[in-house]
Protein backbone atom coordinates (compact mmCIF):
# COMPACT_ATOMS: atom_id res chain seq x y z
CA UNK A 1 0.00 0.00 0.00
CA UNK A 2 1.25 3.46 -0.88
CA UNK A 3 -0.49 6.62 0.29
CA UNK A 4 1.72 9.01 -1.66
CA UNK A 5 0.67 10.64 -4.91
CA UNK A 6 3.01 9.92 -7.81
CA UNK A 7 5.07 12.71 -9.35
CA UNK A 8 2.74 12.70 -12.38
CA UNK A 9 -0.33 13.01 -10.15
CA UNK A 10 1.19 15.91 -8.22
CA UNK A 11 2.16 17.68 -11.43
CA UNK A 12 -1.31 17.33 -12.91
CA UNK A 13 -2.85 18.79 -9.77
CA UNK A 14 -0.39 21.66 -9.66
CA UNK A 15 -1.05 22.42 -13.32
CA UNK A 16 -4.78 22.64 -12.61
CA UNK A 17 -4.25 24.82 -9.54
CA UNK A 18 -1.98 27.12 -11.52
CA UNK A 19 -4.32 27.14 -14.52
CA UNK A 20 -7.30 28.07 -12.35
CA UNK A 21 -5.28 30.90 -10.80
CA UNK A 22 -4.28 32.35 -14.18
CA UNK A 23 -7.44 31.71 -16.24
CA UNK A 24 -9.95 32.06 -13.36
CA UNK A 25 -12.81 30.03 -14.84
CA UNK A 26 -16.05 30.97 -13.11
CA UNK A 27 -16.48 33.04 -9.95
CA UNK A 28 -18.52 33.16 -6.80
CA UNK A 29 -22.07 33.56 -8.10
CA UNK A 30 -24.37 36.40 -7.07
CA UNK A 31 -27.74 34.69 -7.29
CA UNK A 32 -29.74 31.74 -8.63
CA UNK A 33 -29.86 33.33 -12.10
CA UNK A 34 -26.10 33.90 -12.31
CA UNK A 35 -24.85 30.98 -14.41
CA UNK A 36 -21.58 30.13 -16.10
CA UNK A 37 -21.33 30.85 -19.80
CA UNK A 38 -19.39 29.33 -22.68
CA UNK A 39 -16.35 31.48 -21.95
CA UNK A 40 -16.12 30.05 -18.41
CA UNK A 41 -16.64 26.56 -19.81
CA UNK A 42 -13.91 27.08 -22.40
CA UNK A 43 -11.42 27.99 -19.69
CA UNK A 44 -12.16 24.78 -17.80
CA UNK A 45 -11.84 22.91 -21.09
CA UNK A 46 -8.47 24.54 -21.76
CA UNK A 47 -7.26 22.90 -18.55
CA UNK A 48 -8.35 19.52 -19.91
CA UNK A 49 -11.16 19.16 -17.37
CA UNK A 50 -13.93 18.37 -19.87
CA UNK A 51 -12.10 15.28 -21.15
CA UNK A 52 -10.05 13.94 -18.23
CA UNK A 53 -11.08 10.29 -18.50
CA UNK A 54 -12.18 10.24 -22.14
CA UNK A 55 -10.07 8.26 -24.60
CA UNK A 56 -6.89 9.86 -25.92
CA UNK A 57 -7.94 8.79 -29.43
CA UNK A 58 -10.81 11.30 -29.16
CA UNK A 59 -8.96 14.17 -27.53
CA UNK A 60 -9.44 13.11 -23.93
CA UNK A 61 -6.87 12.74 -21.18
CA UNK A 62 -7.15 8.96 -21.00
CA UNK A 63 -7.08 9.07 -17.20
CA UNK A 64 -8.45 6.42 -14.88
CA UNK A 65 -10.99 7.10 -12.14
CA UNK A 66 -8.48 7.90 -9.39
CA UNK A 67 -6.50 10.34 -11.56
CA UNK A 68 -9.73 11.92 -12.75
CA UNK A 69 -10.85 12.36 -9.15
CA UNK A 70 -7.52 13.91 -8.16
CA UNK A 71 -7.92 16.50 -10.92
CA UNK A 72 -11.52 17.27 -9.96
CA UNK A 73 -10.40 17.63 -6.35
CA UNK A 74 -7.81 20.23 -7.41
CA UNK A 75 -10.42 22.03 -9.53
CA UNK A 76 -12.91 22.07 -6.64
CA UNK A 77 -10.27 23.43 -4.29
CA UNK A 78 -9.16 26.33 -6.44
CA UNK A 79 -12.31 27.25 -8.37
CA UNK A 80 -14.75 29.35 -6.32
CA UNK A 81 -17.55 28.43 -8.75
CA UNK A 82 -18.62 25.02 -7.45
CA UNK A 83 -21.53 25.07 -9.90
CA UNK A 84 -19.06 25.22 -12.79
CA UNK A 85 -17.00 22.37 -11.33
CA UNK A 86 -20.21 20.36 -10.90
CA UNK A 87 -21.40 21.07 -14.45
CA UNK A 88 -18.05 20.07 -15.95
CA UNK A 89 -17.91 16.89 -13.87
CA UNK A 90 -21.50 15.92 -14.77
CA UNK A 91 -20.75 16.52 -18.47
CA UNK A 92 -17.67 14.33 -18.25
CA UNK A 93 -18.93 11.49 -16.05
CA UNK A 94 -22.65 11.18 -16.74
CA UNK A 95 -22.35 11.96 -20.47
CA UNK A 96 -18.79 11.56 -21.77
CA UNK A 97 -18.24 8.23 -20.03
CA UNK A 98 -21.30 6.44 -21.46
CA UNK A 99 -20.79 7.93 -24.94
CA UNK A 100 -17.18 6.68 -24.89
CA UNK A 101 -18.20 3.24 -23.66
CA UNK A 102 -21.44 2.59 -25.55
CA UNK A 103 -21.82 4.81 -28.63
CA UNK A 104 -21.46 3.43 -32.15
CA UNK A 105 -18.05 4.25 -33.69
CA UNK A 106 -19.75 6.78 -35.97
CA UNK A 107 -21.41 8.61 -33.08
CA UNK A 108 -18.26 8.50 -30.99
CA UNK A 109 -16.40 10.15 -33.84
CA UNK A 110 -19.11 12.75 -34.25
CA UNK A 111 -19.55 13.72 -30.60
CA UNK A 112 -16.69 12.65 -28.41
CA UNK A 113 -13.98 14.95 -29.74
CA UNK A 114 -16.14 18.00 -29.09
CA UNK A 115 -17.22 16.71 -25.70
CA UNK A 116 -13.60 16.10 -24.70
CA UNK A 117 -12.33 19.49 -25.84
CA UNK A 118 -15.37 21.25 -24.43
CA UNK A 119 -16.72 22.73 -27.66
CA UNK A 120 -19.81 20.57 -27.09
CA UNK A 121 -21.57 20.81 -23.74
CA UNK A 122 -23.49 17.72 -22.62
CA UNK A 123 -26.32 17.24 -20.16
CA UNK A 124 -27.63 14.05 -18.60
CA UNK A 125 -31.43 13.90 -18.81
CA UNK A 126 -32.68 10.94 -16.81
CA UNK A 127 -34.90 12.34 -14.03
CA UNK A 128 -38.63 12.78 -14.71
CA UNK A 129 -41.45 14.20 -12.59
CA UNK A 130 -42.42 10.66 -11.52
CA UNK A 131 -38.97 9.04 -11.78
CA UNK A 132 -36.37 10.34 -9.32
CA UNK A 133 -34.72 7.69 -7.17
CA UNK A 134 -36.65 4.99 -9.00
CA UNK A 135 -35.56 5.21 -12.62
CA UNK A 136 -36.81 1.75 -13.50
CA UNK A 137 -40.02 3.04 -15.04
CA UNK A 138 -39.78 6.01 -17.37
CA UNK A 139 -42.74 7.81 -18.87
CA UNK A 140 -40.58 9.02 -21.73
CA UNK A 141 -40.94 6.58 -24.60
CA UNK A 142 -38.86 5.77 -27.66
CA UNK A 143 -40.84 4.13 -30.46
CA UNK A 144 -39.16 2.53 -33.44
CA UNK A 145 -40.04 4.17 -36.73
CA UNK A 146 -37.92 2.94 -39.61
CA UNK A 147 -34.28 3.80 -38.93
CA UNK A 148 -35.11 6.09 -36.03
CA UNK A 149 -36.57 6.13 -32.54
CA UNK A 150 -39.25 8.70 -31.90
CA UNK A 151 -38.84 10.15 -28.42
CA UNK A 152 -41.76 11.61 -26.47
CA UNK A 153 -41.69 12.80 -22.87
CA UNK A 154 -40.46 15.34 -20.38
CA UNK A 155 -37.23 15.21 -18.37
CA UNK A 156 -36.41 17.53 -15.52
CA UNK A 157 -33.44 18.72 -13.48
CA UNK A 158 -30.98 18.15 -16.30
CA UNK A 159 -27.85 20.02 -15.19
CA UNK A 160 -26.20 21.99 -18.03
CA UNK A 161 -29.27 21.48 -20.25
CA UNK A 162 -30.00 25.17 -20.92
CA UNK A 163 -26.53 25.47 -22.49
CA UNK A 164 -26.24 21.97 -23.89
CA UNK A 165 -25.44 20.80 -27.41
CA UNK A 166 -26.06 17.15 -26.68
CA UNK A 167 -28.23 15.25 -24.21
CA UNK A 168 -27.64 11.77 -22.87
CA UNK A 169 -31.16 10.58 -22.22
CA UNK A 170 -33.16 7.48 -21.44
CA UNK A 171 -36.54 6.24 -22.62
CA UNK A 172 -38.77 3.19 -22.42
CA UNK A 173 -38.56 1.01 -25.53
CA UNK A 174 -40.41 -2.02 -24.10
CA UNK A 175 -42.78 -1.38 -21.24
CA UNK A 176 -43.21 -5.13 -20.58
CA UNK A 177 -39.52 -5.52 -19.82
CA UNK A 178 -39.59 -3.14 -16.84
CA UNK A 179 -36.20 -1.57 -16.11
CA UNK A 180 -34.70 -3.82 -18.79
CA UNK A 181 -36.96 -2.18 -21.34
CA UNK A 182 -35.15 1.16 -21.13
CA UNK A 183 -32.76 2.35 -23.83
CA UNK A 184 -30.14 5.09 -23.80
CA UNK A 185 -29.55 7.75 -26.45
CA UNK A 186 -27.17 10.58 -27.21
CA UNK A 187 -29.46 13.26 -28.61
CA UNK A 188 -28.01 16.27 -30.43
CA UNK A 189 -30.04 19.27 -29.25
CA UNK A 190 -30.41 20.57 -32.80
CA UNK A 191 -32.74 17.67 -33.71
CA UNK A 192 -36.32 18.83 -34.34
CA UNK A 193 -38.55 18.06 -31.36
CA UNK A 194 -36.05 18.90 -28.60
CA UNK A 195 -36.98 21.85 -26.39
CA UNK A 196 -35.06 22.92 -23.30
CA UNK A 197 -36.77 25.02 -20.62
CA UNK A 198 -35.46 27.99 -18.67
CA UNK A 199 -33.02 27.35 -15.82
CA UNK A 200 -34.78 26.21 -12.64
CA UNK A 201 -34.06 28.44 -9.63
CA UNK A 202 -32.05 26.38 -7.13
CA UNK A 203 -30.78 26.75 -3.57
CA UNK A 204 -27.14 26.34 -4.59
CA UNK A 205 -24.73 25.38 -7.35
CA UNK A 206 -25.94 28.62 -8.92
CA UNK A 207 -23.28 28.57 -11.60
CA UNK A 208 -24.75 25.43 -13.14
CA UNK A 209 -28.07 25.94 -14.96
CA UNK A 210 -30.44 22.97 -14.72
CA UNK A 211 -33.58 22.70 -16.76
CA UNK A 212 -36.46 20.73 -18.16
CA UNK A 213 -36.08 18.90 -21.46
CA UNK A 214 -39.06 18.15 -23.66
CA UNK A 215 -39.05 15.57 -26.43
CA UNK A 216 -41.97 16.07 -28.78
CA UNK A 217 -42.03 13.44 -31.56
CA UNK A 218 -38.27 13.83 -31.73
CA UNK A 219 -36.88 11.41 -34.32
CA UNK A 220 -33.47 10.18 -33.16
CA UNK A 221 -31.56 8.14 -35.77
CA UNK A 222 -30.65 4.66 -34.56
CA UNK A 223 -26.93 5.41 -34.66
CA UNK A 224 -27.40 7.63 -31.60
CA UNK A 225 -28.56 4.74 -29.41
CA UNK A 226 -26.05 3.95 -26.67
CA UNK A 227 -25.58 0.22 -26.25
CA UNK A 228 -28.22 -2.26 -27.29
CA UNK A 229 -31.94 -1.68 -27.14
CA UNK A 230 -32.99 -2.46 -23.56
CA UNK A 231 -29.51 -1.87 -22.18
CA UNK A 232 -30.26 1.65 -20.95
CA UNK A 233 -30.29 0.77 -17.25
CA UNK A 234 -26.86 -0.84 -17.60
CA UNK A 235 -25.57 2.22 -19.49
CA UNK A 236 -26.93 4.46 -16.74
CA UNK A 237 -25.43 2.31 -14.00
CA UNK A 238 -22.06 2.45 -15.70
CA UNK A 239 -22.21 6.23 -15.88
CA UNK A 240 -23.40 6.49 -12.27
CA UNK A 241 -20.58 4.23 -11.11
CA UNK A 242 -18.15 6.80 -12.53
CA UNK A 243 -20.11 9.82 -11.38
CA UNK A 244 -20.58 8.56 -7.83
CA UNK A 245 -16.92 7.63 -7.59
CA UNK A 246 -15.26 10.68 -9.12
CA UNK A 247 -17.62 13.67 -8.97
CA UNK A 248 -17.68 14.00 -5.16
CA UNK A 249 -13.92 14.63 -5.35
CA UNK A 250 -14.68 18.25 -6.26
CA UNK A 251 -16.27 18.52 -2.81
CA UNK A 252 -13.10 17.18 -1.22
CA UNK A 253 -11.38 20.17 -2.81
CA UNK A 254 -14.05 22.54 -1.52
CA UNK A 255 -13.69 21.06 1.97
CA UNK A 256 -9.91 21.41 1.95
CA UNK A 257 -10.21 25.08 1.02
CA UNK A 258 -12.88 25.58 3.66
CA UNK A 259 -10.79 23.88 6.37
CA UNK A 260 -7.92 26.20 5.58
CA UNK A 261 -10.23 29.24 5.77
CA UNK A 262 -11.62 28.07 9.11
CA UNK A 263 -8.19 27.41 10.57
CA UNK A 264 -6.96 30.83 9.50
CA UNK A 265 -10.06 32.57 10.79
CA UNK A 266 -9.85 30.79 14.16
CA UNK A 267 -6.24 31.95 14.40
CA UNK A 268 -6.88 35.64 13.80
CA UNK A 269 -10.38 36.42 14.99
CA UNK A 270 -10.17 37.59 18.61
CA UNK A 271 -12.96 37.73 21.18
CA UNK A 272 -12.62 38.14 24.96
CA UNK A 273 -8.96 38.97 24.43
CA UNK A 274 -7.94 35.74 22.73
CA UNK A 275 -8.07 34.13 19.30
CA UNK A 276 -11.27 32.11 19.06
CA UNK A 277 -9.12 29.10 18.07
CA UNK A 278 -7.87 29.09 21.67
CA UNK A 279 -11.35 27.99 22.76
CA UNK A 280 -11.70 24.25 22.55
CA UNK A 281 -15.29 24.61 21.38
CA UNK A 282 -13.81 26.12 18.23
CA UNK A 283 -10.53 24.21 17.88
CA UNK A 284 -12.16 20.81 18.41
CA UNK A 285 -14.73 21.70 15.80
CA UNK A 286 -11.87 22.26 13.37
CA UNK A 287 -10.36 18.92 14.40
CA UNK A 288 -13.65 17.12 13.73
CA UNK A 289 -13.94 18.80 10.34
CA UNK A 290 -10.52 17.49 9.43
CA UNK A 291 -11.45 13.99 10.57
CA UNK A 292 -14.54 13.95 8.34
CA UNK A 293 -12.62 15.31 5.36
CA UNK A 294 -9.73 12.89 5.60
CA UNK A 295 -11.93 9.85 6.25
CA UNK A 296 -14.09 10.71 3.26
CA UNK A 297 -11.04 11.32 1.09
CA UNK A 298 -9.60 7.89 1.82
CA UNK A 299 -12.91 6.21 1.02
CA UNK A 300 -13.14 8.10 -2.25
CA UNK A 301 -9.59 7.29 -3.33
CA UNK A 302 -10.23 3.63 -2.55
CA UNK A 303 -13.55 3.52 -4.44
CA UNK A 304 -11.82 5.03 -7.48
CA UNK A 305 -8.88 2.65 -7.16
CA UNK A 306 -11.26 -0.32 -7.09
CA UNK A 307 -13.03 1.02 -10.18
CA UNK A 308 -9.67 1.33 -11.97
CA UNK A 309 -8.89 -2.28 -11.08
CA UNK A 310 -12.27 -3.41 -12.42
CA UNK A 311 -13.24 -4.71 -9.03
CA UNK A 312 -16.96 -4.04 -9.20
CA UNK A 313 -17.63 -2.97 -5.67
CA UNK A 314 -20.88 -1.01 -5.44
CA UNK A 315 -20.61 -0.89 -1.66
CA UNK A 316 -17.28 0.96 -1.67
CA UNK A 317 -18.66 3.51 -4.11
CA UNK A 318 -21.82 4.00 -2.07
CA UNK A 319 -19.80 4.37 1.15
CA UNK A 320 -17.55 6.94 -0.46
CA UNK A 321 -20.38 8.96 -2.00
CA UNK A 322 -22.20 9.02 1.32
CA UNK A 323 -19.12 9.93 3.34
CA UNK A 324 -18.11 12.84 1.10
CA UNK A 325 -21.59 14.31 0.81
CA UNK A 326 -22.31 14.03 4.52
CA UNK A 327 -18.90 15.48 5.36
CA UNK A 328 -19.64 18.36 2.99
CA UNK A 329 -22.91 19.23 4.72
CA UNK A 330 -21.58 18.77 8.27
CA UNK A 331 -18.35 20.69 7.66
CA UNK A 332 -20.16 23.50 5.85
CA UNK A 333 -22.48 23.94 8.84
CA UNK A 334 -19.42 24.00 11.10
CA UNK A 335 -17.78 26.60 8.89
CA UNK A 336 -20.78 28.92 9.21
CA UNK A 337 -20.62 28.51 13.00
CA UNK A 338 -16.88 29.26 13.13
CA UNK A 339 -17.27 32.38 10.99
CA UNK A 340 -20.28 33.53 13.00
CA UNK A 341 -22.35 36.31 11.44
CA UNK A 342 -19.77 36.77 8.68
CA UNK A 343 -20.35 33.15 7.67
CA UNK A 344 -24.03 33.86 7.19
CA UNK A 345 -23.57 36.92 4.99
CA UNK A 346 -23.90 36.47 1.24
CA UNK A 347 -20.80 37.23 -0.78
CA UNK A 348 -18.31 35.94 1.76
CA UNK A 349 -18.29 32.46 0.28
CA UNK A 350 -18.96 30.53 3.48
CA UNK A 351 -22.75 30.36 3.23
CA UNK A 352 -22.36 29.43 -0.44
CA UNK A 353 -20.37 26.35 0.58
CA UNK A 354 -23.33 25.17 2.64
CA UNK A 355 -25.84 25.81 -0.15
CA UNK A 356 -23.58 24.07 -2.65
CA UNK A 357 -23.01 21.08 -0.37
CA UNK A 358 -26.61 20.22 0.45
CA UNK A 359 -27.48 18.81 -3.00
CA UNK A 360 -24.55 16.37 -2.76
CA UNK A 361 -26.73 14.13 -0.58
CA UNK A 362 -29.38 14.16 -3.34
CA UNK A 363 -27.82 13.93 -6.80
CA UNK A 364 -26.30 10.74 -8.28
CA UNK A 365 -28.53 8.71 -5.94
CA UNK A 366 -29.61 10.06 -2.55
CA UNK A 367 -27.97 9.05 0.71
CA UNK A 368 -30.92 6.76 1.40
CA UNK A 369 -30.44 5.02 -1.95
CA UNK A 370 -26.71 4.57 -1.22
CA UNK A 371 -27.59 3.00 2.15
CA UNK A 372 -30.05 0.77 0.37
CA UNK A 373 -27.32 -0.40 -2.04
CA UNK A 374 -24.98 -1.10 0.87
CA UNK A 375 -27.67 -3.01 2.77
CA UNK A 376 -28.71 -5.03 -0.30
CA UNK A 377 -25.14 -6.05 -1.01
CA UNK A 378 -24.83 -7.16 2.60
CA UNK A 379 -27.76 -9.49 1.96
CA UNK A 380 -30.25 -7.56 4.11
Amino acid at each position, binding site marked *: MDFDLTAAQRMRREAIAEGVRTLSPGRLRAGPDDHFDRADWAKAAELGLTGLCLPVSHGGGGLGALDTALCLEAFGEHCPDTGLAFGVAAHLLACGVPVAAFATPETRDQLLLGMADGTLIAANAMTEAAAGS*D*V*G*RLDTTATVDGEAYVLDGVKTFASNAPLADVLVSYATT*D*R*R*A*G*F*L*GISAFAVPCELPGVAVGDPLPKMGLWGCPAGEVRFDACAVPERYRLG*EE*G*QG*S*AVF*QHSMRWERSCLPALYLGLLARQLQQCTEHAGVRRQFGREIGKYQAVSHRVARMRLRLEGARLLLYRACWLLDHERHD*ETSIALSKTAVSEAAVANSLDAVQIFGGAGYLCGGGIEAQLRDSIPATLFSGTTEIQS*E*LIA*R*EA*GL
Partner: protein
Amino acid sequence: MTAAHLSEQVVKDKLIEFIRETFLSGDPDRELDEGTPLLEWGVIDSMRIVVLLAFIRRELSTDIPMTQISGANFRNVRKIAALVVH
Protein backbone atom coordinates in the same frame (compact mmCIF):
# COMPACT_ATOMS: atom_id res chain seq x y z
CA MET B 1 -18.58 -21.46 -14.09
CA THR B 2 -22.07 -22.69 -14.93
CA ALA B 3 -24.72 -24.67 -13.21
CA ALA B 4 -24.78 -27.31 -15.92
CA HIS B 5 -24.77 -29.96 -13.23
CA LEU B 6 -28.15 -28.76 -11.98
CA SER B 7 -31.26 -29.69 -13.87
CA GLU B 8 -33.40 -26.88 -15.20
CA GLN B 9 -36.26 -27.94 -12.94
CA VAL B 10 -34.08 -27.73 -9.83
CA VAL B 11 -32.91 -24.26 -10.86
CA LYS B 12 -36.51 -23.12 -11.45
CA ASP B 13 -37.53 -24.40 -8.02
CA LYS B 14 -34.63 -22.67 -6.31
CA LEU B 15 -35.33 -19.40 -8.13
CA ILE B 16 -39.02 -19.50 -7.28
CA GLU B 17 -38.29 -20.20 -3.64
CA PHE B 18 -35.74 -17.38 -3.48
CA ILE B 19 -37.96 -14.81 -5.23
CA ARG B 20 -40.93 -15.75 -3.00
CA GLU B 21 -38.98 -15.38 0.20
CA THR B 22 -36.91 -12.35 -0.75
CA PHE B 23 -39.21 -10.17 -2.84
CA LEU B 24 -42.77 -11.36 -2.22
CA SER B 25 -42.94 -11.70 1.58
CA GLY B 26 -43.20 -15.47 1.19
CA ASP B 27 -45.94 -15.19 -1.47
CA PRO B 28 -48.67 -16.51 0.84
CA ASP B 29 -51.25 -16.78 -1.97
CA ARG B 30 -48.80 -18.72 -4.16
CA GLU B 31 -49.17 -16.28 -7.05
CA LEU B 32 -45.68 -16.72 -8.46
CA ASP B 33 -45.09 -19.38 -11.06
CA GLU B 34 -42.46 -19.92 -13.70
CA GLY B 35 -44.33 -17.81 -16.25
CA THR B 36 -45.04 -14.77 -14.07
CA PRO B 37 -43.83 -11.59 -15.89
CA LEU B 38 -41.26 -10.50 -13.31
CA LEU B 39 -40.09 -7.32 -15.01
CA GLU B 40 -43.46 -6.13 -16.22
CA TRP B 41 -44.93 -6.48 -12.73
CA GLY B 42 -41.91 -4.91 -11.08
CA VAL B 43 -41.11 -8.03 -9.02
CA ILE B 44 -37.56 -7.50 -10.28
CA ASP B 45 -36.32 -3.94 -10.49
CA SER B 46 -32.88 -2.37 -10.82
CA MET B 47 -32.12 -2.76 -7.09
CA ARG B 48 -33.49 -6.28 -6.77
CA ILE B 49 -31.64 -7.66 -9.74
CA VAL B 50 -28.39 -7.06 -7.85
CA VAL B 51 -29.69 -9.30 -5.06
CA LEU B 52 -30.90 -11.90 -7.54
CA LEU B 53 -27.58 -11.95 -9.41
CA ALA B 54 -25.73 -12.38 -6.10
CA PHE B 55 -27.99 -15.34 -5.28
CA ILE B 56 -27.38 -16.90 -8.69
CA ARG B 57 -23.64 -16.42 -8.26
CA ARG B 58 -23.59 -17.79 -4.72
CA GLU B 59 -26.16 -20.58 -4.76
CA LEU B 60 -26.18 -21.60 -8.41
CA SER B 61 -22.47 -21.01 -9.10
CA THR B 62 -23.21 -19.00 -12.22
CA ASP B 63 -21.84 -15.57 -13.10
CA ILE B 64 -24.18 -13.91 -15.54
CA PRO B 65 -22.29 -11.44 -17.74
CA MET B 66 -23.71 -7.95 -18.17
CA THR B 67 -24.36 -8.57 -21.86
CA GLN B 68 -26.85 -11.31 -20.94
CA ILE B 69 -28.93 -9.07 -18.69
CA SER B 70 -31.84 -8.31 -20.99
CA GLY B 71 -35.59 -8.08 -20.90
CA ALA B 72 -35.86 -11.34 -22.82
CA ASN B 73 -33.56 -13.29 -20.51
CA PHE B 74 -35.17 -12.09 -17.28
CA ARG B 75 -38.80 -12.07 -18.42
CA ASN B 76 -39.81 -14.89 -16.07
CA VAL B 77 -38.38 -17.73 -13.99
CA ARG B 78 -38.43 -20.09 -16.99
CA LYS B 79 -36.19 -17.74 -18.98
CA ILE B 80 -33.80 -17.11 -16.10
CA ALA B 81 -33.45 -20.85 -15.43
CA ALA B 82 -32.65 -21.46 -19.09
CA LEU B 83 -29.99 -18.75 -18.93
CA VAL B 84 -28.45 -20.25 -15.80
CA VAL B 85 -28.36 -23.80 -17.13
CA HIS B 86 -27.13 -23.07 -20.67
